[in-house]
């Protein structure tokens, strides 16, 4: 038996109440499409279950019964019925085609799953199967009062609801089972296919192994046969060859003497005979070549690493940057006129700075680097070295600035500037740590380790910093 949703209206309406729709707009006040029944006025208020306007009651035209079934005929008085208009519970039957309404509390419970309703133009024919075979006194319960009616109605509705839920559940479960089954079937098929391929491969392997054994056996047999042959020949030829051999021994040099020790190899019985035949062949080999040298030029490559096509672009960029950096000279400073020629050369100044650093004159070194930077601010090494000086002078912020600037200039990262980058990271890391910014310092140390994982000093320092960080975290 098909059953209607709560609201008989074919259009969506929020009311979900059995029976009629009491209001034209939903509870939220939104303007919803009006129920097909047309606009209704709020007369009897919001009592659920009670229609606002009086429905037109339908009455069955006749009913018959047998022991197991009840046959009901309901004329429709011109209304069109669809399965959605019919609602049937265990003991409750309702047909609602607004404004017509037919309601019946049945005498005894029926089997609503198997019962049927046949909709024809003017009538609906119900075939209701009784739950218990018995003869009903009447179709409906006679002394039903309003409350009981209401109760029954609600029960019926609830039951129908539950049944609907159960059905969907059951459907879901069957669907899942079907899926599972399908999956298992595909898995089995694929497994079978795989096994087949494995078997084929295995067969090949075995075949091949057998062939190999056969070949080995053949080799051994062939060798044995050959060795027997040679032995026979040996005995015949031994005398004249021995004399020739003695002649040869005087002429030829060391490597052959190594072979003349008669060691008969167990697998090849060629030992003594081969010595003779080799001596003969010796004559036919040409003398060693006269020594000569060929000079070779290589396709030029700046980097010591092997050439890889994918890295060529990066390397080109780096080289280009280096070349440019050397060419750039900031020559718009009037003080430059006072300086000697060599002092205008950033490289010379860098060397001077390095020497002063080595001697411990950090301020002097900083001055040298400063001047060099004014002349050419694209050389990363200047900043790198100046950072080292600042570290020694405990100008930590300046050290950090300079290391950062150096790192900026050391892009793109190629193996060529690895060392410089490691140094920059380590110096910056040290400066951070001395400022007690341990996390930043650790970041830099780890970056340095990433570039050069093999440096023990950096590893140890990184460990120390980690301990420090953990120590401060615990205490705070």
């Amino acid at each position, binding site marked *: 038996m098909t059953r209607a949703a709560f609201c008989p209206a074919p259009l969506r309406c929020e009311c979900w109440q059995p029976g009629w729709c009491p209001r034209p707009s939903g509870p939220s006040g939104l303007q919803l499409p009006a129920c097909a029944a047309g606009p209704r006025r709020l007369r009897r208020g919001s009592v659920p279950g009670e229609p606002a306007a009086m429905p037109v009651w339908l009455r069955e035209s006749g009913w018959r019964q047998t022991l197991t079934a009840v046959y009901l005929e309901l004329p429709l008085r011109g209304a069109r019925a669809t399965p959605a208009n019919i609602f049937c519970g265990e003991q409750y039957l309702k047909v609602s085609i607004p404004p017509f309404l037919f309601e019946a509390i049945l005498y005894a419970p029926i089997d609503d799953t198997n019962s049927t309703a046949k909709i024809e133009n003017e009538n609906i024919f119900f075939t209701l199967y009784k739950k218990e075979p018995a003869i009903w006194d009447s179709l409906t319960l006679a002394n039903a009062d309003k409350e009981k009616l209401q109760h029954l109605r609600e029960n019926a509705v609830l039951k129908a609801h539950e049944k609907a839920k159960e059905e969907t559940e059951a459907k879901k479960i069957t669907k899942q089972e079907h899926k599972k089954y399908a999956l298992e079937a595909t898995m089995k098929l694929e497994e079978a296919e795989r096994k087949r391929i494995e078997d084929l491969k295995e067969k090949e392997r075995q075949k*091949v*192994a057998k062939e*190999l054994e056969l070949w080995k056996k053949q080799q051994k047999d062939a060798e044995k046969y050959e060795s027997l042959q040679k032995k026979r020949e040996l005995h015949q030829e031994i005398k004249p060859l021995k004399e020739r051999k003695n002649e040869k021994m005087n002429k030829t040099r060391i490597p052959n003497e190594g072979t003349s020790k008669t060691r008969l190899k167990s697998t090849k019985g060629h030992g003594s005979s081969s010595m003779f035949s080799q001596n003969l062949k010796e004559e036919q080999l040409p003398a*060693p070549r006269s020594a000569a*040298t*060929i000079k*070779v030029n*290589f396709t030029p490559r700046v980097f010591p690493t092997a050439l890889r096509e994918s890295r060529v672009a990066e390397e080109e960029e780096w080289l280009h940057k280096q070349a440019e950096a050397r060419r750039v000279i900031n020559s718009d400073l009037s003080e430059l006129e006072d300086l000697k020629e060599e002092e205008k050369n950033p490289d010379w100044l860098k060397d001077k700075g390095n020497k002063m650093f080595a001697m411990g004159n950090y301020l002097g070194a900083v001055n040298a680097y400063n001047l060099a930077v004014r002349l050419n601010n694209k050389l990363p090494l200047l900043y790198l070295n100046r950072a080292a000086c600042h570290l020694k002078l405990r100008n930590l912020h300046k050290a950090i600035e300079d290391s950062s600037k150096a790192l900026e200039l050391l892009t793109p990262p190629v193996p060529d500037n690895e060392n410089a980058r490691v140094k920059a990271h380590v110096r910056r890391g040290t400066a951070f740590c001395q400022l007690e910014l341990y996390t930043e310092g650790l970041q830099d140390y780890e970056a340095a380790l990433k570039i050069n994982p093999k440096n023990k000093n950096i590893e140890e320092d990184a460990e120390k910093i980690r301990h420090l960080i953990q120590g401060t975290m615990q205490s705070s």
Partner: protein
Amino acid sequence: MSVGSGLERPQVVSHVQQGLSYTVFDCKWVPRSARLLCLGSAARGTGLIQLYELHGARLQLLREIEKPKPIKCGTFGATSLQQRYLATGDFDGNLNIWNLEAPEIPVYSVKGHKEIINSIDGVGGLGIGEGAPEIVTGSRDGTVKVWDPRQKDTPVANMEPVQGESKRDCWTVAFGNAYNQEERVVCAGYDNGDIKLFDLKTMSLRWETNIKNGVCSVEFDRKDINMNKLVATSLEGKFHVFDMRTQHPTKGFASVSEKAQKSTIWQVRHLPQNRDIFMTSGGSGSLHLWKYEYPAQRSKKDSEGSEMGVAGSVNLLQNVTLSTQPISSLDWSPDKKGLCVCGAFDQTVRVLIVTKLNKI
């Protein structure tokens, strides 16, 4: 590569797998036998030579020889079939020739290079080809030297950088064109992508080119014929096949190149029984089996009328991944078609059989 439909293609079957306790750098079949050699470096910094015999489905260790310096490469190419002496190059630049029956003292020894000998090749032995037996070594010190085991201490040919030029590592060497007693060429590949062909008869540089990636391995398809094809493998998964029959005065040799594997191609080895089939081994632990197809016409005339070579095409027959580490060495057995051994950096040596090579 679906196996199901491709069963007509050659299959690479892994026959034996042997774990080793040292890093293996080179593996070679002992000619005319079912024995193989593994050369490498033990963890304590000494060199190892192990001799195995193939017994059914396993390798049986016959002998282990330890040497003071790790050994990088070895060859049987310059020795006679009866002697079967092994020539090795080690990490210190020493070239030694060993008699495996009495390995305490080398038969020939020379400190040939200042740095590690990366690659070694031999020609004139094993009954293949004609002419004097010679060994060539290529080293990280940028030089390529050719040695004759009958001449002590000095090489018979030395290809070294010009005075004052910065050197490039030589990564690989190979002999070729040894079809009579006088002719011989040496091909060398360097880490800056240079390939140079030296003619030993005229003692001059015959050809050079640059393939834009470091050259890992070069090999002629046959050493003992008029040079036919040269395969050069490089970093970044590329290899080039050069047609060596026709040399154009300016353009050199024609070539076809393939980018096969994402990683370095460590070795190329031609099948001794069919010179158009070769196997490449890669840094991703994979092996690719290739076949070269010749073009309809191997040479044509260019606009000025000089002969120019035409390169053919290369087809992939099969590929298989055996390991996660690079397969650094590969050797075909000269006696059984399809039997090969490969050594990888995961400290295993594998014996493989390639099937259906007769049907190619």
